[in-house]
């Protein structure tokens, strides 16, 4: 079997507002997004028999069941890898539906990345367990050296990438400018009506030199996103335009850690994305040139370039040229993160990128791509291809 062949589909999407201070718990945020998604799907809480989230999500399943009113859950699971696992929610949901383990699955992520007990981008100084946190025990080998933040973990990889392929901060900034242009017209986005030029990017302060400036960082955000996934047969009876899951895949490799991921032989290549590209494209026969738009996890902008290369949309070291040609922008070769991405819209840990892919396929996106039929969603080591039919 290669992929799911459209046997499962996203039939409902929901979200809270994205803010810097939600003023309510993650549990309540999840409830609100799920209620919104079920309404969009034309389903009720009693239809749901599956739940999927991330290992790092703070919302406990039983709390959710007893809040929203799910009656009998036959399948629940969580995806590892922190935000890298975000698109794995689609894999788990589709697998549950294809196997018959569940008929209607809710996938959710609720986060207070800005107003929570610790800011998501801030320093982590306690040794991390392997579950319930977006890291592995490898993090403790960073802490004595002041390598305490997501930006610092990423920077060590990004500097090596830039060194290997001669990439500059301005090369990366050109990607950010294209994303922020989408955010500028997206009322849900942090970057709404906040234009940003390459000069602004280059003038923003260093977070980690020579690779990550302030404007290369996503926005720590409070909010929740929920998706409703069901079978093709059930989708046919529902009111919304389904986003079919042609293929969903994950690739967790021996060489990888989570977040403090510094031990693969060649850190200039995102090897998880290379493996993911094989599973999404080469195993299914779907061509990279058949993808009409892409939603790519951009917690920090360098990983956007590295995923474009790893997934095979351009050669190794060629993302800077691909981007300089305007490929990510409207009318470009691969319109990307058309909501502004995690950098421009907000950071619901990746799941808001799926929301945008569904809106594009329905034809209801703020920055609508002309007649998209196949959209890629990637979080570097998990991903999916969503289709309109």
């Amino acid at each position: 079997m290669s992929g799911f062949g459209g046997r499962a589909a996203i039939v409902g999407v929901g979200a809270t507002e994205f803010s810097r201070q939600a003023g309510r718990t993650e549990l309540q945020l999840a409830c609100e997004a799920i209620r919104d998604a079920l309404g969009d799907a034309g389903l009720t809480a009693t239809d749901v028999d599956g739940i999927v989230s991330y290992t790092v999500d703070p919302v406990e399943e039983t709390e959710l069941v007893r809040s929203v009113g799910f009656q009998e859950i036959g399948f629940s699971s969580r995806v590892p890898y922190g935000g890298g696992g975000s698109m794995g929610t689609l894999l788990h949901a589709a697998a549950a539906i294809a196997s018959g383990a569940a008929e209607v699955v809710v996938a959710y992520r609720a986060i207070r990345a800005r107003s929570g007990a610790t800011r998501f981008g801030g320093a982590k100084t306690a040794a991390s367990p392997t579950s319930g946190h977006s890291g592995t025990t490898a993090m403790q080998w960073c802490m004595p050296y002041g390598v305490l933040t997501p930006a610092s973990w990423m920077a060590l990889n990004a500097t090596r990438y830039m060194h290997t392929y001669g990439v500059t901060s301005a090369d990366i900034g050109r990607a950010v400018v294209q994303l922020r242009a989408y955010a500028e017209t997206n009322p849900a986005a942090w970057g709404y009506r906040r234009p940003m030029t390459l000069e602004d990017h280059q003038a923003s302060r260093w977070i980690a030199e020579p690779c990550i400036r302030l404007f290369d960082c996503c926005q720590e955000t409070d909010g929740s996103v929920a998706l409703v996934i069901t079978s093709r047969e059930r989708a046919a009876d529902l009111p919304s335009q389904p986003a079919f899951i042609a293929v969903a895949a994950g690739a967790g490799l021996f060489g990888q850690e989570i977040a403090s991921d510094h031990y693969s032989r060649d850190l200039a290549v995102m090897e998880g994305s290379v493996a993911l590209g094989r599973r999404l494209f080469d195993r299914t026969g779907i061509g990279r040139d058949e993808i009409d738009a892409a939603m790519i996890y951009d917690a920090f902008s360098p990983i956007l370039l590295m995923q474009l290369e790893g997934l095979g949309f351009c050669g190794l070291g060629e993302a800077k040229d691909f981007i300089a040609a305007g490929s990510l922008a409207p009318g470009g070769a691969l319109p990307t993160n058309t909501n502004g991405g995690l950098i421009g819209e907000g950071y619901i840990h990746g799941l808001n990128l799926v929301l945008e892919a569904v809106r594009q396929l329905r034809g209801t996106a703020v920055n609508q791509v002309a007649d998209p039929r196949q959209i890629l969603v990637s979080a570097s080591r998990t991903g999916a291809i969503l289709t309109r039919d």
Partner: protein
Amino acid sequence: MLRHPPRPMCPHCQSLDYEAVQLSGRGTLYSYALLHHPRHPAFDYPVVAALVDLDEGVRVVSNLVDVEPGEIRIGMPLEVTFEPTAGDGSVPVFRPARDAA
């Protein structure tokens, strides 16, 4: 077979036996970053973070000392030195090798 970060089992032969070995303390700079923000009160900024490929074949996260930021070059030969930490501890950090082999 050296492994780092260490975990309970050898991923090549599934043995649970292990021993700590002393290394030469020599390596080369694989990557680095000058960390400016956000800041933690325990450190001086910018923190000079480094990935060092040790001659024996494992990579470690560390800091660079005794080097100006403008003199940092990926691939430069390094040697270990030790910095005190809280309590009576010390951690291995790296400086430019004085007799580059």
